[in-house]
């Protein structure tokens, strides 16, 4: 029994990591990329990687000045914005590229799902990608607290409370686990110095280290197996990966860099928030109106405001499990069906992100 299991695991890994193909000829020189009407989707992963690189570089620059203490965090961010030469551009570039990275990672997820890019032998690529998606959200959540302003601390409190609320729906023997998890993340009775320290370490050390590993595995796997066809039937036209596709890929990076830099130069990210939300966090002061998570969490935040908590949590956790098991659940599903599912999710995401507030007021107003 054990021997058979080990043999199956070995065969699974041998098929996903064929040693014979691990050379420059297979992985770069001889590699081709299918050309069809969905070819644009092949660039989304590269753009996400490039935005991650911007995050690393700008994040390192911010680290020279940022102080991860509750007394100095806000002031150090103000110092970066107001006093450090070019500081506001670097900070804006970090904020804009973070949002862009999440947008592109979601677009990459939706298109690869629609193109059935998770199918055998690309399961490992897919799983690493889902891991990276979750880590990207982790980056967003942990980074949100670091400026230590009103919206940062209050939104983090709400986020952590929603973890704790899960306990009431679990069996009695497990009901304490979400509270324990919240306390582990929070580090003390309320969101304070311990929380800031933990979020800081997660944001600048733990998550980047895991990301580097997963990105390495993801890219290695992509190079090993090449791009999936992505469309039904056979693809007749292809182009060389090197240099044709790589040059196009780098050109999109150039365009993205230009757009990001112009946005960082001309449009302060903070301008989208009401200014009381940008005030330093005051534990004794009143909580200002309009506390919300970042826009990419609206897909969970607004349903939580309108629907029963257990239902939303079930849907979110169920969705993550379905994504992780997609290569096996959708093994027999046609690309056409997958495309319909992907379009459905994309529409939901766009509508709830752009009009979530309007829908919320309609629902609550009608109640």
């Amino acid at each position, binding site marked *: 029994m054990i021997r058979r299991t080990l043999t199956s695991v070995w065969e699974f890994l041998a098929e996903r990591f064929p040693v014979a193909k691990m050379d420059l000829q297979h992985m770069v020189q001889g590699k081709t990329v299918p050309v069809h009407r969905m070819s644009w989707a092949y660039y989304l992963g590269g753009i996400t990687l490039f935005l991650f690189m911007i995050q690393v570089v700008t994040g390192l620059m911010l680290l020279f000045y940022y102080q991860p203490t509750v007394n100095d965090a806000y002031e150090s961010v103000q110092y970066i914005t107001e006093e450090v030469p070019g500081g506001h551009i670097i900070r804006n570039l970090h904020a804009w590229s973070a949002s862009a990275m999440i947008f592109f990672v979601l677009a990459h997820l939706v298109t690869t799902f629609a193109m059935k890019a998770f199918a055998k032998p690309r399961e490992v690529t897919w799983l690493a990608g889902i891991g990276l998606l979750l880590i990207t959200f982790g980056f967003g959540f942990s980074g949100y607290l670091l400026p230590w302003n009103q919206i940062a601390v209050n939104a983090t409190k709400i986020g952590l409370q929603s973890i704790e609320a899960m306990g009431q729906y679990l069996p009695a023997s497990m009901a304490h686990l979400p509270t324990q998890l919240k306390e582990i993340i929070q580090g003390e009775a309320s969101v304070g110095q311990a929380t800031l320290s933990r979020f800081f370490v997660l944001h600048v050390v733990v998550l980047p280290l895991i990301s580097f590993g997963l990105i390495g595995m993801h890219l290695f796997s992509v190079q090993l197996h090449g791009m999936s066809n992505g469309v039904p039937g056979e693809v007749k036209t292809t182009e060389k990966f090197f240099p044709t596709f790589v040059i196009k890929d780098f050109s999109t990076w150039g365009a993205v860099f230009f757009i990001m830099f112009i946005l960082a130069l001309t*449009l302060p990210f903070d*301008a989208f928030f009401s200014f009381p939300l940008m005030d330093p966090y005051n534990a004794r002061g009143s909580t200002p109106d309009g506390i919300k998570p970042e826009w990419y969490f609206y897909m969970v935040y607004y349903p939580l405001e309108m629907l029963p908590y257990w239902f939303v949590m079930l849907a979110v956790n169920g969705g993550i499990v379905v994504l992780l098991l997609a290569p096996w659940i959708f093994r027999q599903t046609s690309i056409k069906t997958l495309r319909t599912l992907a379009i459905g999710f994309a529409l939901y995401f766009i509508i709830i992100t752009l009009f979530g507030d309007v829908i919320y007021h309609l629902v609550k107003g009608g109640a």
Partner: protein
Amino acid sequence: MGRMIIALVFAVTALQAYPEFQKFSQTHSRRTVNCGMCHASPEGPDGLSFGQVGSLDSVQMDLLKEARRAQRPGMEVSNPILNPFGNKLVQVMGVRLLVDAKKDPAMLHYYLKDAGDMDGDGVTDAQEFLDGTNPNNRHHGDPLALLLTNVQHHFFEIVMILLATAAGMFGLSNLLLAFAAGGKKP
């Protein structure tokens, strides 16, 4: 103890809080606005924290009294419970007009029309009052207005960045083509 008494006296009179303006700006802009638009403390003038009446020393109390005597426009004031925009309001309008304007808060926009742009972000103080944005912060304003202003202001830099990016991509592409050509067998 002395500070506490002073704070209590001001809290009872609450003369210097102008929630009408805050309410108008908030309703007009649909953005959350707090006392921090004009006051040194986002919690308003009453209390013991920094920028609130209860925290003032004797010198600051004199400045406060002096600012309250600025009944007519044109007097430069440095009221410690107000921020630069709040002090500018007193200077432009004077306390008397300011109190009158509480009946019609939209008048503030009218009086500030020619008062300029204190934070230098390209959006006038009058407009920032209507937009519910922070007139003391050059990184805060209506996003579209800031974008248009900054594009105009940084036009040369934008052209330079465009040229630099295009030149970089051109060079990188040719480098990769050269690598590809070099890798081929003769």
